[in-house]
């Protein structure tokens, strides 16, 4: 090597890049990728970058942020066992090329480029550096391998691949080949930090909250219901807030206690944020299988006093119990004990709340976006124009 060069001033916070982000799914339909792209765009803009997001928009009346450029109406396409609303074809291609030409981007960041979509079109059209983020963690993603010959010519142009989870990374490695760096989803701490509790909460007699799918045993609602059944007879005002889609199995709760289990069903985004602010104690009784614990980080962002099972993911997120109490996974008696201690100690709750707000900063979108900006700088650091001819002459950079 022996190349005398100084490291670039690639400060991670350095702003001022022109970034074009492509979201393949319809912007007016709620979804994980859309949420990710929106949060990323806002964090990058906050860091001083110029961001333009290209996405299909099905409903022209739908309010869109200033950074969004519509690529027209999407078509419903069966993909991965569900219906994705995407946009593809010659007219979409023209639209993508015009957006790239007018955007004058330093780099283009495409999301989920494996499916036939705007993202794939952008890979084909862009001549500059490309970053791609993979979200899918479907091991039987047929669309990914079915189009892989056409996909390869697009993937070859991608300078940097990001996977949002270990599962997404494995899917990528198996179906497309190559590797990716792992950058998880962030939590928008700002969005959860402040909200009014739902009407009637937290109430006088103490309260515990649970959020998540109610009919999925792994979420551990049953353990919490059992702990509540132990606590409630001695604490006549204690109430349990349960929010999330699905039908819960309340057969383990005695009839006279059931009216104090308040089922709120599925909540919209705004009410979900408020729900985190409702109870004295927030409980995450999951039995396992959580790779990251998005519910937990959201509760932390809301400054909840948390009691959570001691599965490895939660232990890590809660700093081994510094930012929330841990109980033995699946042990309702231990949970009841920990929850009771917290319900009786407002000072301890306030302390945990502060610790949780501090610990969640590592998962904040701003931190995650800084890591993604670091990827941008890494890609751009080596990117000086080099013509194919000079390459063939064997010149080294």
């Amino acid at each position, binding site marked *: 090597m022996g190349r005398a060069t100084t490291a670039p001033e690639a400060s991670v916070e350095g702003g001022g890049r022109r970034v074009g982000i492509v979201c393949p799914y319809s912007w007016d339909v709620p979804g994980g990728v859309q949420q990710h792209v929106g949060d990323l765009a806002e964090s990058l803009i906050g860091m001083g970058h110029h961001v333009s997001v290209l996405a299909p928009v099905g409903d022209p009346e739908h309010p869109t942020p200033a950074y969004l450029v519509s690529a027209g109406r999407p078509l419903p396409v069966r993909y991965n066992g569900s219906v994705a609303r995407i946009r593809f074809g010659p007219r979409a291609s023209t639209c993508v090329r015009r957006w790239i030409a007018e955007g004058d981007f330093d780099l283009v960041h495409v999301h989920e480029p494996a499916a036939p979509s705007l993202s794939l079109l952008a890979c084909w059209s862009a001549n500059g550096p490309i970053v791609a983020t993979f979200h899918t963690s479907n091991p039987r993603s047929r669309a990914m391998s079915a189009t892989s010959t056409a996909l390869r010519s697009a993937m070859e142009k991608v300078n940097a691949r990001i996977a949002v989870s270990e599962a997404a990374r494995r899917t990528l490695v198996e179906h497309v080949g*190559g590797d990716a760096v792992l950058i998880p989803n962030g939590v928008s701490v700002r969005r959860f930090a402040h909200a009014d509790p739902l009407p009637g909460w937290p109430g006088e007699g103490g309260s515990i909250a649970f959020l998540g799918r109610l009919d999925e045993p792994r979420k551990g609602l049953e353990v919490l219901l059992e702990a509540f059944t132990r606590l409630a007879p001695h604490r006549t005002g204690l109430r349990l807030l349960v929010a999330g889609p699905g039908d819960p199995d309340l057969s383990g709760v005695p009839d006279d206690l059931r009216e104090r289990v308040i089922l709120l069903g599925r909540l919209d985004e705004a009410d979900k944020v408020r729900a985190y602010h409702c109870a004295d104690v927030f409980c995450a009784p999951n039995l396992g299988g959580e790779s990251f614990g998005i519910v937990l980080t959201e509760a932390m962002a809301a400054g909840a006093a948390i009691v959570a099972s001691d599965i490895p993911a939660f232990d890590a997120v809660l700093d081994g119990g510094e930012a929330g109490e841990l109980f033995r996974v699946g042990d309702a008696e231990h949970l009841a004990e920990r929850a009771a201690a917290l319900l009786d100690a407002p000072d301890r709750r306030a302390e945990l709340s502060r610790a949780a707000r501090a610990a969640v900063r590592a998962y904040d979108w701003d931190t995650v976006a800084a890591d993604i900006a*670091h990827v941008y700088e890494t890609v751009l650091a080596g990117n000086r124009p080099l013509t*194919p001819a000079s390459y*063939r002459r064997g010149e080294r950079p």
Partner: protein
Amino acid sequence: MAAILLVLVLVGFYLSWRATRLDRLHHRVETARAALDAALLRRAAAVLDLAASGHLTPEASAGLSESANRARRADDHRELAESALSVTLRETLDARADLTTAPELQEVRVAARGVHLARVFHNDAVGDTRRARRSRLVRLLRLAGTAALPEFFEMDDQAPGAAAPGSR
């Protein structure tokens, strides 16, 4: 006659497209390699700054500087020297959890993360290029020209201590 001509033209277009793709891949490797060099140099510089900052014991500082300088100068055994620096960094910093807020340490962490990012992107580019060059057509018609077959850069790039932001 016209049909033969048309086929020849189409074949020509196809071959030129394949050659362009290959050129692009080689270019990707080159830029990724330049980025990796820059990331490694940034890390070495950050480690030297940390060693000079006075946060560490004289012995720890001396060990880090020596390791960083060896990595910077290594020509033939660069992968080994850079790996050794990663190991020294972890040994030194994992014993000093109290340093977390020092700006020199922050820079070392970010720079170490940058090495990991750059190395993954580089090896990805190398893998894609090597796969493309295995194609029979590319070998038969020597579409790669005289370009050398790119090599992977193998090293221990695990960052010290608590993982860098976002790497969990």
